Each structure stands twice: as C-alpha cells, then as structure tokens.
C-alpha cells in the first residue's frame, strides 16, 4: 500500500503513539471495533467476513473429497491461500497484488498448517480422514482482501477461524469397498441437516505488534504501518502456545523486546478469543442457517480492562 504522508503527518503519528493516544483516539494496545458476518458465501461449506475499521476481508472454506497425502494415509488435507483484490487498492491490479498475497498466505500457512508431518496443525488432520489411505476431506481455505486499511494478517486469521467454525462437512456414508484392494464406494448425504462440525478450539488467532519509534502498537492502520520499523506477528492458540511467528520490517529487534512482544500478543489473543466467544460465534449451534452478524462493540471495554500494558 502506498500511503502518501507529509512530514507533519509522520510526526503526528509517531508523537501520538509515544503519548499513547493514536490518530483515531485509541491507546497503543487497543483494537478497532469489528464486525463479523458468517455464512456470507452460500456455495462454500463455511465462510465469514470481517470488517475491522476500513479493512474488509472474506474467508471461505470449501471441502472436497480427495485422496490422503502420500505417506500419511490417515490424514486429510488443508490448504490456505490469500488473494488481494484490486478493489482494495489500485496497486493490486494485474500481478501487483501477488507479492502481498504470497506474503500473507505464507504467514497464515506457517501458523495454521503445522509441521510437514501435519503435527501442530490448526485442525486435527486425522479428523478429516474418512477411509484410511483412500478417502479424506481436503479443506481449501481462501482469503480475499476486499478493502485494506492495515492489519490484514490479523483480520484474515480471525476470518479464517470464524469460517472454520462456521464450516459444516456433509455426512459421508461408506457403502462398500472398505477392503484394501477395492476402491471405496460412498454416498454423500443430501440432507442439509446432517453434517459434522470441525473442532476449531485449537485454531490460532494472529496478533501483529507493530513497532513505531520506541513503542509497539496492536491493530495498526495503513498509515501507521507505513511508519513502522518492525512488526512481529504471533499466532497463539487456545492453550497459549505460540503456533507461528513472522517478523517483518527493516530494523532489528532486541531479543528481550521480542519476548516482551510475544507475551503481549499472547494476552491480546486471549482477549480476542474471549470477545469472539462472547459474541456466541463459536458456541452457537445454529449459525449456519442464516447470516449472523455480531458487532463486537464491547470489545474495546474488555480490552481496556483486561489488557492494558504500560
């Protein structure tokens, strides 16, 4: 994103962050208010759209029947990709968005897919297996950036988590061919009431801390991101384990600062998860019937009480 800022604006942004009151009135460790819609894409198995300030992203999960990956007969497949639409910025026209798309997809893959053996993946890959060595679910998670005003990675991770929670896999009935030499014979249930949900409690959320001057902030806007010296994106799951880390930006970070940032990110992820659970998004059993919209206005207050760091 190209942000044209004058020298005075740059000083204003840096000064505001140093004084703990940013351009939009937030403190250094406050998120913007956000809004989540689920089931926005009827053709997908699960989908969610999140508007975080001026950032607007859609995540969809499509499930296809596939053959298990070689060497791991009792696992399913999980794939993540991100696309930046030119609607977000004219610079993304043609191949212009590819670099950023790749950067975001790689960061999300690092945090969601676990190791090459599938250990530590956001979704239990063994749960996606249907017939060992023959049939499994392949989940394709696609992110689309429609509008961009900073903090894309966090927004995408929240949208993907919500889309996975929203995802329903149709029931597969095996009617024959279970012996090793036969091809499996199956039937997909046409009943929309019959589906299984994914266990998504271990799906991480990503919190990006952006360092501007001496301080670091959460949920940076595009203007603030243009002034960053370094940024660390930390993916944290429910257990509080760090699932993925990405450091960006031109300058180096002290190890002590890095560890401090990770602990702050961890606290924020807990608040984020609580706020999402508070909205009932991940516990409600009837979210797939119609698009449900949650406005997380309370989030700010929760944040101010629970997670102020000095």
């Amino acid at each position, binding site marked *: 994103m190209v942000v044209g800022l004058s020298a005075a604006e740059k000083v204003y942004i840096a000064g505001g962050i140093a004084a703990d009151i940013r351009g939009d009135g937030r403190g250094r460790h406050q998120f913007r208010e956000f809004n989540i819609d689920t089931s926005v894409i009827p053709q997908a198995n699960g989908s969610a759209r999140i508007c975080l300030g001026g950032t607007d992203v*859609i995540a969809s999960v499509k499930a296809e029947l596939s053959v298990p990956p070689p060497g791991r007969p009792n696992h399913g497949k999980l794939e993540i*990709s991100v696309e930046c639409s*030119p609607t*977000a910025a004219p610079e993304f026209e043609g191949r212009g968005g590819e670099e950023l798309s790749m950067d975001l997809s790689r960061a999300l893959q690092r945090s969601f897919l676990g190791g090459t053996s599938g250990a530590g993946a956001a979704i239990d890959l063994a749960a996606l297996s249907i017939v060992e060595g023959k049939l499994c679910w392949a989940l394709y998670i*696609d992110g689309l950036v429609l*509008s961009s005003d900073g903090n894309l990675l966090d927004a995408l991770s929240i949208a993907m988590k919500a889309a996975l929670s929203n995802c329903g896999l149709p029931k597969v009935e095996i009617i024959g061919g279970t012996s090793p030499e036969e091809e499996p014979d199956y039937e997909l249930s046409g009943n929309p009431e019959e589906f299984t949900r994914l266990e998504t409690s271990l799906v991480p959320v990503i919190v990006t801390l952006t360092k501007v001057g001496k301080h670091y902030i959460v949920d940076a806007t595009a203007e603030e991101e243009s002034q960053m010296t370094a940024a660390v994106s930390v993916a944290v799951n429910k257990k509080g384990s760090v699932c993925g880390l990405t450091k960006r930006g031109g300058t180096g970070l002290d190890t002590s600062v890095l560890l401090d940032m990770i602990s702050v990110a961890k606290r924020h992820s807990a608040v984020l998860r609580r706020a999402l659970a508070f909205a009932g998004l991940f516990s409600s059993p009837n979210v797939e019937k119609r698009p449900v919209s949650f406005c997380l206005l309370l989030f700010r207050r929760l944040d101010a009480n629970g997670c102020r760091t000095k």
Partner: protein
Amino acid sequence: MDFISPEGLRLDGRRPLELRQLQAEIGVVEKADGSATFEMGNTKVIAVVYGPREVQSRSQQQHDQALVRCEYSMASFSTGDRRRRGKGDRRATELSLVIRQTMEAAILTNLLPRSQIDIFVQVLQADGGTRACCINAATLALADAGIPMRDIVASCAAGYLNSTPILDLNYLEDSGGGPDLTVALFPKLDKVSLLQMDSKIPLDVFEKVMNLASEGAKAVAQFIREKLMENTKQLVLAKGR
C-alpha cells in the same frame, strides 16, 4: 432436461418472465472513490472505482478525454467447484474489455481530460449472469464516485429454453445449451450499448428474446435509480439540509 415445469415454473421457482431478487448497496469500500455491491439472486459482485485521478503511466494519457480502465476478477470460491483462475485468463480479459467499453460509452470522458478512471469488479458469487451483474455494479460505483455519465447503464440477460423465452438465467439454465443473450442499455436514451449472444436462434425468436432482455434491463434500471435516489436522500439527511 426440463427447464420449465408443466405448471410454468422454472428450476428455482420463478416464472419465465421473472427477474431474480435484486439487491444493491452503495459505498461498501471506505477508501475507494466509489463502490457498490450488486446482487442478482445468488450472483454477487462488488465494483470499486478509483478516480478520476492522475494518469499512472504518462504514455497512456489522453489530452482530450479520460482514460477508462477495467479489471475483472473472480474469487476462487465464487463458483460451485473451487478453482483458481489466473488473472490473465481469456474470459477475464474479454469481460474486462466488455465492461470497459460499455462503461466508457456512458462516461462523459471529454469532461475529464488527462485523467484516469479505474473500475475494478470482483465476483464474489457466480450463479449465471455475471456479465450483467458486473455492469450494474459498475454503474452504481461510478455514480457513487460522482463521475459524470450520459445515463446509467443497466444490463440483463435472457435466454430461450424449452421453446420459451426466459429472463435472467441462473447457472443451471445458462449451461442448458440454449442461447444466452446479454443486453446493456441506456434506459433514458433508449439505446443499446452492449449486445452479446452465443448459440443460435431463428430471427423472429431473437426479436422476442431481445425485447425480453431489454425489458429486464429497464426493470433493473428502475431498481438502480431507486437505489441511487435512496442513497442521495441519505446523504442529504447526513448533511443536515
């Protein structure tokens, strides 16, 4: 395959001369100069306009009129089966060109010399009639950006299946093998600006289908005008005068 039941209903329960439900929203992308989503049934498109602004590459600058550019893209999850489409595939290139030419005809380009207008259309859900839906969304986005236009452009598709002309085909009907005719017109001037058809039909049937598509486009135009009116009223209210 029977596309129309003996009771005269289509696969999705519509009558042959019925449009799908239309929905539109203006001003959906904050940072853009103009933006809108347009839905025709399950087909959903978002269009965003950047400009008029400085021409990005000097060589393309025109001293007597604005440069209009368009890019069409499809989200990988927009179709029934997931597939990744490259940005430069033939269909996307052709559609970008079609939308650009249609919108260029409507924009008063001579009023905005040495400037550039970018139109980006992104298909979120494809269920037939994306061409028409993209043009309708682009019209709304251009109007939202305040770009001077001769008239709004409204578009609709029609086809001919089971010896019946039918309006606003969905994906199933679109792939039914009959002709698919897309019309875009200027409703006030009553002029056609885009006309595309594939397959073949006799001339007298063509006239019927063509008239049907034009009628559909006029109904869409009415809807677009109401939406713009509603939006303008809201802006007036917000301004407090």
